């Protein structure tokens, strides 16, 4: 519980109209998109400008009260889950687009602005904001910065970190600083780069200047069916080998397709074992030329149906099927867990085979939707909580993420570590790696007030001896070494 003096000081910092303290109101902040982890906060602050965020953080710092920044709460790793006896600082009332500069192709926005609203503001100038998480209609740019969010088009265009020029950040002791600058030029080490993707543990971002890109001249999209996931995977390899950098390459397996079709009827083939969505964009002539190449590659690998989007509406429909897939599995299973792991793209077929075996062994179904171009998997573990399958499903999901590490990949491609995977970090990083990250955290937040307990494993969360580190496969092959 917060004592009265702290409450008073926090109220003074953000204003009485910008505080939630009633139990019902507080309950709506108890979790993010990963609803299994819950904790009701002591207080929620809804500051309306950078100065009041800084004032609130200073109060927290002075009284050693832990705080958690929160955007739209769509995070999928428990990153915005409150901490006991701490406060939540919601950035939802900082939601204006401060400036769109069509000449220097950038926008200045507050952290509560949704990802899609940036593109909406830029659109009249023929510009857009490139990173496009599937949750873009609701997730905030502040959350995107914290998670270094990606999206289907990040294969070609990069992630949040590649599109943020500078930020106004309130550090964990309340100091307001600028990270980054007006160009890519840096004054010393790139603190902006380490802040992005730090999952709310290094401070609160209060204003962001993002790069905007010119809308490409042409976009071509196809949906292709294949007799197997392996065949679809070979298509992806051949596209890459041909020197083509597609704007997006997404794969869905049969289970995911069935679910998506039930939910939105986007015109996918119900019986196909696998489908690929391939999108190319850029100058019209080149796009057309490469699109023909992609079609030929699809044919070569036994494509059973090729549907080309004839116009924007058809393209939107194809994407609707893909983007609906997550939520849609709710139609074919009472409960599900979304996993997010990465493998080197060349090991996609292998990892899918292993996942299938693991699913069978656990007696659970796994649907697969993924960003095939960059090896980012989103296996959806289907289960029935009422049937007592939760624990098995969680175990399987965790095993899949750790399998990705074993295959030379990563625990997370975009959803982050948060609360969910902190205890798996020792599978991917050694003691010294984690200790070094912790040193950086100490530099920013010596008192561990800023989103504590997230990202790095803690004894409280994981037990004294978190899971054993397994050597990276390249380490076993003698390619890299750890001393």
């Amino acid at each position, binding site marked *: 519980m917060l004592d009265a003096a702290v409450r008073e000081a926090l109220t003074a910092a953000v204003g009485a109209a910008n505080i939630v303290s009633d139990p019902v109101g507080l309950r709506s902040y108890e979790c993010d998109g990963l609803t299994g982890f819950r904790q009701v906060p002591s207080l929620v602050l809804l500051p309306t400008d950078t100065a009041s965020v800084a004032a609130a953080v200073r109060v927290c710092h002075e009284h050693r009260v832990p705080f958690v920044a929160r955007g739209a709460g769509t995070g999928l790793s428990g990153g915005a889950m409150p901490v006991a006896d701490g406060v939540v600082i919601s950035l939802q009332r900082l939601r204006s687009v401060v400036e769109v500069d069509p000449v220097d192709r950038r926008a200045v926005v507050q952290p509560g602005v949704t990802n899609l609203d940036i593109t909406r503001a830029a659109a009249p100038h023929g510009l857009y904001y490139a990173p496009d998480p599937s949750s873009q209609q609701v997730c905030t740019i502040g959350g995107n910065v914290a998670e270094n969010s*990606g999206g289907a088009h990040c294969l070609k265009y990069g992630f949040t970190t590649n599109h943020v020029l500078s930020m106004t950040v309130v550090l964990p002791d309340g100091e307001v600083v600028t990270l980054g600058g007006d*160009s890519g030029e840096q004054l010393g080490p790139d603190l902006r780069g380490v802040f992005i993707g730090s999952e709310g543990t290094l401070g609160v971002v209060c204003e962001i200047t993002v790069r905007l890109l010119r809308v490409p001249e042409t976009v071509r999209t196809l949906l292709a069916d294949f007799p197997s996931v392996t065949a679809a995977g070979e298509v992806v390899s051949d596209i890459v080998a041909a020197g083509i950098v597609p704007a997006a390459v997404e794969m869905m397996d049969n289970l995911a397709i069935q679910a998506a079709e039930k939910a939105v009827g986007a015109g996918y083939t119900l019986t196909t074992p696998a489908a690929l969505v391939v999108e190319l964009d850029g100058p019209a002539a080149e796009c057309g030329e490469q699109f023909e190449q992609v079609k030929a590659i699809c044919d070569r690998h036994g494509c059973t149906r090729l549907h080309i989007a004839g116009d924007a509406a058809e393209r939107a429909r194809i994407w609707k099927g893909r983007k609906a897939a997550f939520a849609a599995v709710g139609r074919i299973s009472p409960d599900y867990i979304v996993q997010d792991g990465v493998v080197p793209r060349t090991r996609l077929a292998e990892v899918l085979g292993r996942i299938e075996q693991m699913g069978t062994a656990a007696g659970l179904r796994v649907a697969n939707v993924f960003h095939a171009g960059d090896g980012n998997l989103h296996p959806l573990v289907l289960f029935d909580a009422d049937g007592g399958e939760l624990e098995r499903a969680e175990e399987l999901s965790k095993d899949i993420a750790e399998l990705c590490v074993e295959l030379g990949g990563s625990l*997370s491609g975009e959803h982050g570590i948060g609360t969910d995977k902190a205890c798996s970090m020792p599978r991917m990083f050694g003691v010294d790696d984690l200790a*070094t990250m912790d040193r950086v955290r100490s*530099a920013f937040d010596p008192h561990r007030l800023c989103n504590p307990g997230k990202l790095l494993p803690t004894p409280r969360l994981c037990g004294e001896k978190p899971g054993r580190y397994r050597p990276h496969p390249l380490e076993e092959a003698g390619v890299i070494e750890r001393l």
Partner: protein
Amino acid sequence: MTATMLAPTDLRGAHEALAGTSGPVEIRGAATAADWAGAPQPAPTVLDTSRLTGVLAYNPADMTVGVRAGTPLRELQQELATHGQRVAFDAARVARGATAGGLVATADSGPLALAYGSMRDLVIGATVVLADGTVARTGGHVIKNVAGYDLAKLLHGSYGTLGLLAEIVLRLHPIPAASRTVRLDGELPVAADRAAAVLASALEPVSLEWADGTLLVRVEGTVEGADARARELARLIGGSVLGDDDAEAAWARHAELVDTASVRIGCRPSRLAGVLAECGGTAVAGLGTGIGTVAVAPERVAAVHDVVTAAGGMSVTRRRPGNGVGAWGQRPSALRVLTAVKNELDPGHRLGRGRFEAWFGEEEARS
């Protein structure tokens, strides 16, 4: 004082070099940026990375490569080219043998930055050796990865002050089938005007640079596509499409001007032409990136810093003015936390003394 030279050839050697010594250390690569930023204070130990070379992992189908950080990027590019791939990075000093790690540590970039950014945008993993010999890995071998803090970015621009980059993993891109350059001779204001038209078009230039009297615009793509866009660009700006040899010569001249510059600056792209005009001297301007260089007489450097600062930009010298003028035109807004990072990673301030002049309070605290 003659310094002890340590030239490890692998990670173990790099670890031993730092774990087994004490006192200040200067990390040195190919020394192509030896005169950049603040002057390193003479250190009893020099850690030379020029033998820390070689490709560690390269699977062309994954389009990533892991290398020891002392590998000259030029050599790496040659090897990648046999597979039709490249690191999409072309800073001028690559041609002089700059190492992959040195290019990261100095936050350098070249004309391709307009499309691909700098090394920070291409580094996906690193193995770093801290001042106490701790070996820490960050990132990994996959392009998409958000697990843990991205320490490779922290080391980007650190000038050997936070740790030794021993190994790095880079994301690769395909070498395009064709590259075409359009040229227009003209003064900077005209070039800036044409550049704005190019940026407003859908022609997707990968480089857009004015180099002392010449505007150069490069496009890359398929043969037919690049040809068509180059012709359109030539029409748009009133310039001409260069043949391959002329294009090569034009970009070589550009690199030479960058190599001989005395200050590098970065600001809002639309302000760059105005800033450079005020700076005087011989200039190169990345009109899409806002990054440029100027060659001015030593006594003009202080004025350049002032002009850039007034425009909200950043400036750092690439040639020591040697007249008491600072190397850095500005201090970072987050200097307090940056110093805290320095103190955490290198508590004894062993590494890279002088590169950031007195940012970390060197003179007062320890000398």
